[in-house]
């Protein structure tokens, strides 16, 4: 027991996994053991979308105070429309559609950084102004069109191997790569160094501008690919498809143990936090809680968890 507590205090992000486990057990106990496995499958499938954008947001936030990508929801919306239009219900166009969504997201990320650099404004304002424009572009571009994904692509995004969604496996592989990039590669170490002290990193000769550009582009590209996958999973693109990912991407990063002050990041915690949030919703849904109460409780839990975890030491 004491060794467990020691592990927990050394790795605070384990709390989110523990929390997710408790929520799952409570829900399964409530249903009398019914559908516990299906619940986990669904939780993995919904978490993967949050994890993908969460990782992008994590790299951005790790760049230091004030760095945040508020354009993700608009980005996801536009990229989902772009992907579905390029694919045009045709299975042979899937790869091209994915590339288009990726390129669309990456272009948005690059544009975000261009605004930050050229106007010397805080990233919050830059990504916010950009999101206004992206949102309008999406409304105008995807107007009234509920384009369905190609059947093959929709099946692919919903595919399961022994109850584990294929996309979740791919996302886990990607998370491991992101973890290695963060801790073991020059890029990740540079992001951490910039987050700890941008001036010191610059004086040490790190290409600060290039790393920041790369990070915003990465976040944008991940938003883009997330949009395409979401449109496949939910069988159709729409303007509001990315709305919930602003809170979700920020919340999983912070609950997952990444420091908002920058310079300290954690990839596994993002998975734990994403599962925690999805299972919280599953539990409330199973209890038959009304929509208003569900939102109220979700909000209170997020504020409570963040308050308990504390901020910059």
């Amino acid at each position, binding site marked *: 027991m004491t060794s467990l507590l020691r592990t927990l205090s050394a790795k605070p992000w384990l709390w989110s996994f523990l929390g997710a486990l408790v929520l799952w057990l409570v829900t399964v106990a409530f249903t009398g053991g019914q559908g516990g496995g299906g619940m986990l499958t669904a939780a993995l499938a919904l978490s993967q979308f949050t994890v993908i954008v969460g990782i992008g947001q994590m790299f951005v936030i790790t760049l230091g105070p004030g760095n945040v990508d508020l354009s993700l929801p608009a980005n996801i919306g536009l990229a989902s429309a772009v992907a579905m239009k390029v694919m045009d219900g045709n299975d042979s166009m899937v790869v091209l559609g994915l590339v288009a969504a990726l390129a669309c997201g990456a272009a948005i990320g690059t544009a975000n950084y261009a605004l930050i650099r050229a106007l010397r404004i805080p990233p919050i304002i830059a990504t916010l102004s950009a999101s*206004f424009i992206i949102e309008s*572009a999406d409304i105008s571009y995807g107007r009234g069109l509920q384009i369905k994904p190609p059947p093959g692509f929709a099946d692919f995004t919903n595919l399961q191997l022994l109850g584990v969604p294929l996309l979740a496996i791919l996302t886990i592989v990607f998370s491991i790569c992101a973890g290695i990039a963060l801790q073991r590669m020059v890029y990740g170490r540079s992001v951490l160094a910039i987050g700890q002290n941008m001036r010191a990193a610059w004086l040490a000769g790190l290409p600060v501008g290039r790393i920041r550009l790369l990070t915003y582009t990465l976040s944008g590209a991940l938003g883009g690919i997330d949009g395409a996958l979401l449109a496949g999973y939910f069988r159709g693109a729409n303007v509001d498809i990315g709305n919930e990912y602003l809170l979700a991407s920020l*919340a999983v990063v912070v609950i997952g143990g990444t420091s908002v002050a920058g310079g300290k990041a954690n990839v596994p915690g993002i998975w734990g936090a994403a599962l925690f949030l999805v299972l919280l919703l599953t539990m409330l849904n199973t209890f038959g809680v*009304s929509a208003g109460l569900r*939102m109220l409780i979700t*909000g209170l839990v997020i504020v409570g968890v963040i308050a308990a975890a504390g901020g910059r030491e």
Partner: protein
Amino acid sequence: MSARAVRAWLPALSFALVVGAIAWLNPRAISYLGFNLMLNLAVPIALATIAQMFVIAGNELDLSIGPFVGFVGCVTATWLRDSPLLGAAALIAAIAIYAALGALIYRRSLPSIVVTLGMSFVWLGLAILLLPKPGGKAPDWLLATVGYQPPWIPLPILAALVIAGVAHFGLMRTSYGAILRGSGGNPAALARAGWSLLKTKVVLFALAGCFGVLSGMTLIGITTSADANIGSGYTLLAIAGVILGGGEFVGGRVSPVGAVMGALTMALAASPLLTFMNIPPDWQVAANGAILIIVLAVRALVSTRE
């Protein structure tokens, strides 16, 4: 003209440009009735902008002001009409929650973005619980107040002047206002001089709550009925208004008069101007973003000369 002066006049200049463009496109809009119609919804936006300005003055950001305005709207259209005492108590409690959030954010040194984003769910959830379907009705006294037509000057312009005046006097001309701005400008120095940073944070958030309540009530006075999502666009509009009005994100540099002008510019540019220019409503949100970027670009250009 010095760079500093250009910066200070930028909000007024952008406002004048937008009004000028409207006057050029449709001269009849520049009248008592025209301003009443065009600026009607600008008053609650201006109030929400001032609320956001207080939070930004303390180097924080409030992403929950929109849903909060919606919640206040729902309380106004239900409880405040049916049982005024309960309604008033709920609104005062809401302001107290805002103050408590300020204390929580300071005590636990939490990121205000995430805390307020979480709170946005709380306010929206409460609003939906209170008013699951759009409806309710504004209290009669509120309808009468908002519908009042003063001689010569349209009510929205009069209201904007009063809001700007009150906020300017409080924040820029009183000694505690200087302390509040200082808490964003140089918190360490302020703390060493013996001022409580906890108190400044609580006061700034409480003020934000007060103006948020005023914004929600005015909005319901104009729309006459409520909807839980009625304030959803306000979060971004309010931030944009503060920045457009010359506010800086860090360092407690804000301007109440500029913020009100920024809010009016947003309100005018977002809808009447585009309508007169025959631009489809799809691009209304983009207009907000574009104006923000253009003004910031001009500001960046001017600052290079500094």
